[in-house]
């Protein structure tokens, strides 16, 4: 199944361990855990907990990128789903709230999927539409206010705990297992990779590429809406302007760190989630170390560049690399 880790995941595992060690160095009590009110507390739990939204987004994003696409709208979908959940929370029961928020995410994903798979619009452009308009729609739902709620059920989604583990971690782990079982337990993952590798060849050999592309965008929308619900439950409110802002970039970054090629054709779910945790461990580390949080963006930029250069097909052979520069390859 997903356990190809021995060779492929080595770099990511190493990076995560190094970053956790640096975190431990700047904050000696980093690995301390204590139980309070039936919930574990500690910096490590905090990394996992705060990393949940990006981890969920990257679960959807990794499949989209595996087909050679990209979904820029996930942050906006988070805002829409959060706004939906928050405005229904105090008047409806939890299943209704969650079902409608996820339903909204499904519709958003379907919209993106139809644009890409049926109308054959370039993914980056197709999802740009919802990225631009989505926050406006979320504002429409919240009527431009920050909607707060007090429904204990929904708050429990963000702050509750099961067996000492915070709910977001439980949900994200569950989603990872479900996605892995569906995608890697069947031939679906292979078909998705085939679509991303060469859509035309896959189509000719009988893969329903349209259905594949459509379904990954729907799944991405669904994951994004779940992340939106958790983010809203966490702060007990929905802020259409800032919920999920720039998280699409973090999700793409997580997928790239996880070794998935942006050109599609192969992917790893576990490593994408590991990428999300690496990003969060860096964020937490910078906060703990007392450096200004503004440094975060710079560190991220350097990490993106480093990962990209490491992945670049041209770095393998330095001598050919200089020769190619002179020859100016197309």
């Amino acid at each position, binding site marked *: 199944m997903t356990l190809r880790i021995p060779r492929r995941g080595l770099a990511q595992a190493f990076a995560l361990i190094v970053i956790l060690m640096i975190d431990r160095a700047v904050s000696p009590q980093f690995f301390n855990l204590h139980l309070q009110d039936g919930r574990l507390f500690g910096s490590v739990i905090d990394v996992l907990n705060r990393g949940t939204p990006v981890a969920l987004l990257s679960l959807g994003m990794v499949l989209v990128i595996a087909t050679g696409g990209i979904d820029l709208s996930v942050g906006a979908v988070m805002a829409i789903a959060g706004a939906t959940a928050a405005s229904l929370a105090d008047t409806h029961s939890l299943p209704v709230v969650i079902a409608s928020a996820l339903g909204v995410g499904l519709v958003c994903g379907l919209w993106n999927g139809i644009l890409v798979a049926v109308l054959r619009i*370039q993914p980056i452009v197709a999802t740009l539409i919802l990225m631009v308009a989505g926050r406006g729609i979320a504002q429409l739902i919240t009527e431009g206010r920050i909607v707060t709620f007090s429904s204990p059920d929904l708050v429990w989604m963000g702050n509750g705990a099961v067996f000492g583990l915070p709910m977001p971690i439980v949900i994200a782990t569950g989603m990872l297992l479900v996605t892995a079982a569906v995608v890697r337990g069947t031939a679906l993952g292979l078909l998705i990779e085939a679509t*991303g590798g060469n859509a035309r060849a896959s189509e000719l050999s009988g893969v329903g590429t349209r259905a594949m592309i459509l379904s990954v965008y729907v799944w991405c929308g669904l994951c994004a809406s779940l992340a939106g619900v958790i983010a809203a439950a966490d702060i007990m409110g929905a802020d259409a302007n800032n919920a999920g802002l720039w998280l699409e970039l973090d999700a793409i970054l997580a997928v790239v760190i996880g070794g998935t090629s942006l050109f599609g054709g192969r992917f790893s779910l576990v490593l994408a989630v590991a990428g999300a945790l690496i990003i969060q461990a860096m964020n937490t580390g910078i906060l703990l170390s007392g450096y200004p949080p503004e440094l975060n963006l710079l560190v991220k930029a350097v990490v993106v560049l480093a990962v990209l250069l490491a992945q670049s097909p041209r770095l393998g052979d330095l001598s050919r690399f200089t020769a190619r520069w002179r020859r100016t390859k197309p």
Partner: protein
Amino acid sequence: MKASTSIAITAFVLVAGFALCALQFPNIASTRVVANLLTDNAFLGIVAAGMTFVIISGGIDLSVGSVIGFTTVFVALAIERWGIPPLAAFALVLVLCALFGAAMGAVIHVFDLPPFIVTLAGMFLARGVSFLLSTESIPITAPIYSAVSDFAIRLPGGGRLTAIAIAMLVILVLCALLLHLTRFGANVYALGGSRAATALMGIPVGPMTVRIYMLSSVLAGLAGIVFSFYTAAGYSLSAVGVELDTIAAVVIGGTLLTGGQGSVIGTFLGVLIQGMIQTYINFDGTLSSWWTKIATGVLLFVFIALQQGLMALARRSSVKPAGAKPMGART
């Protein structure tokens, strides 16, 4: 012919939209409102001109908003804290922007990476540096700023064509000339049409890529300077999300996001359409500003669907080469 069709459609949307606005609020049809529209969107027009080059060449530049933010902070700090004369500060910041753009172009070409992700890293980098420079808004009090903001050409009907609006118009004309009348411009179109064919024709793809991203970053720097004149301040959070407005303006202006087709004039019309929507919402007073985003999204969708339809028509009329269907165009 197709290019002129899409400009005509954009122009029609602009004129029809303006006529509808004027029907509801007769005051919109005054030189005062139109001149203000130009002033308010001056920085957007300049940065969109640069984005037009990048998108026609088949790339994308997500870093422009951050470069604008960086420029305003840098200019404000240079003038107010470091005591550098304003003109020297402008020159310095433009050189920095040029180096930044050249570096992005070089990384894109040398390492054969998608422009999307490289300029994304650039976006983080430029925003991060401006945060490090200063997180507070720095007012600029240099005399040149008040002199420039006082300068305006009076139009009949009470409108004031401000210095920054004139700057935008001049830059747009220069960019249009550069794109449509020079060898550089022709090469930009060639790159967007097919990189492989361009390289085979003997056009230096690498230096071209570097120059295109350099141009985009320099224009973003100029837009940043104009933005600092507009707000008379430098702030690291200014122009967040402008890259999206810019891309939207370029697409609405009829430039193909897959590259190879587009024009600076169309982009200018696209900027005006966005400005018009904003003006309408200001006039209405009851609509909230988030309608701008929804309206922009709807327009984006309409124009992209239109492009897709036109391309499908063109493809149907031309003979299809067997097995050479362009699939999975890279982002």
